[in-house]
């Protein structure tokens, strides 16, 4: 049984169909990439899974049970945590306090201090989050998400603000983290080098519909994906 099943989900905002009968899943321990053009519905899918949005149709199941009866605040206790595309930290708070919020949400077993060492933020722990470079703020969000002890981690564009070399390190880190914390990871990302190197499977959305899904190699050579998204084979 997959850990996460998004089953025929539709979500409309007025006349705009953000998700149109989308289905995909993630098996335990998988890293699953979710890619597609801007406005394709990737972040909407994250918002449906984390219950910020209620779908108009379809179901989302986690460990075989529907998530739709869980309140947004209960999602983290079910074992799902996330980061945000545009960084949603408590800006005035220190790094360590941001991470403590994550731990508080679900009594994470990891100590906050250990976690800060793990993500290499310990030396910055008393700095206000808002003062840090963009890429570092993304790492604080990751630490906050990990602190709740999730089984499923949703990462929304974690490579933002990172150089090529740092993105490579992030790829290695995501894989190590999956092993160390027994995670399943759902990854929205435009950095194709990262997605194609870390993901076990990739799903592609375009205009709210799933247009492809498969291994990175299959997706990369898919004509429709190249036209809608990649632009050039790569």
């Amino acid at each position, binding site marked *: 049984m997959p850990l996460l099943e998004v089953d025929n989900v539709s979500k409309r905002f007025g006349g705009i169909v953000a998700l149109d009968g989308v289905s995909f899943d993630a098996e335990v321990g998988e890293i699953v990439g979710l890619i*597609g*053009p*801007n*406005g394709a519905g990737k972040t909407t899918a994250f918002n449906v899974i984390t219950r910020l949005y209620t779908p108009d149709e379809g179901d989302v199941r986690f460990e075989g049970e529907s998530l739709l009866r869980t309140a947004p605040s209960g999602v983290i206790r079910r074992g799902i945590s996330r980061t945000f*595309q*545009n960084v949603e930290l408590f800006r005035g708070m220190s790094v360590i306090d941001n991470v403590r919020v994550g731990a508080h949400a679900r009594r994470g077993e990891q100590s906050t201090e250990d976690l800060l060492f793990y993500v290499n933020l310990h030396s910055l722990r008393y*700095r206000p989050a808002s*003062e*840090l*470079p*963009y*890429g*570092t703020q993304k790492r604080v969000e990751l630490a906050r998400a990990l602190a709740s002890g999730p089984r499923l981690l949703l990462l929304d*564009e974690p490579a*933002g*603000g*990172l*150089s*090529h*070399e*740092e993105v*490579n390190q992030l790829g290695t880190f995501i894989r190590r983290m999956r092993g160390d914390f027994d995670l399943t990871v759902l990854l929205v990302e*435009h950095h*194709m*080098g990262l997605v194609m190197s870390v993901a076990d499977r990739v799903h592609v959305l375009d205009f709210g519909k799933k247009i492809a899904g498969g291994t990175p190699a299959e997706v990369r050579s898919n004509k429709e994906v190249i036209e*809608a*998204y*990649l*632009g050039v084979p*790569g």
Partner: protein
Amino acid sequence: MSRSLLELNNVEARYGPVKALHGVTLTVGEGELIAVLGANGAGKTTTLRAVSGTVKRDGEVIFNGKKLPRRPEATARAGIAHVPEGRGTFTELSVWDNLRLGAYVRRSNVKDDAARVFKYFPPLEERRQQQAGTLSGGEQQMLALGRAMMARPKLLLLDEPSLGLAPIVVAEIFRVLDAMKAEEGISVLVVEQNATLALAHAARAYVLEVGRVVVKGSSDELRANESVRRSYLGY
């Protein structure tokens, strides 16, 4: 290199007790597109902020032959438009109102300038009454650039235009930058993590590490540099 439009001489900047720039020297010539590369935290964003006066700085910034005061409004009036990381559009306002705000320092010929912006970014015209926050990421970046163009700047400071954008959209943004450079004669100082693309469009580039320029040169020279290839280009 053409006549220099912007010169930074030994510029330092800090956030409270933390020093972010340790003496950066760089120039942007008239009509040039110059890229700034570097790891997260190297000081790229701070370099742009030091120019626009949105961070405390020491050292000299010369623009168009004159010393530039460290006041953001003076910078804007002098002809510098700063498009910050994350775009900074007014999400509650319409596309049209965002564009009008871009022309705030002048308030004349708004319609003509908007027509120019729509020529570069046709989707903005279709969505002129739409709330900016409801645009896709690519359209928001277009709006941020369009709003900057409304000020008729001589110099555009661009902070990671590719952030959060699909590969096909990033390529389009850089194509438009080239066109604006050619047709409007503006100069561009762009911070960009997609180094391959940035070097393809830039005449020259600077690489920052821990608040200092460690490598500079033409795009060809940088592409041939072993450490730049390894860290920023990946081949």
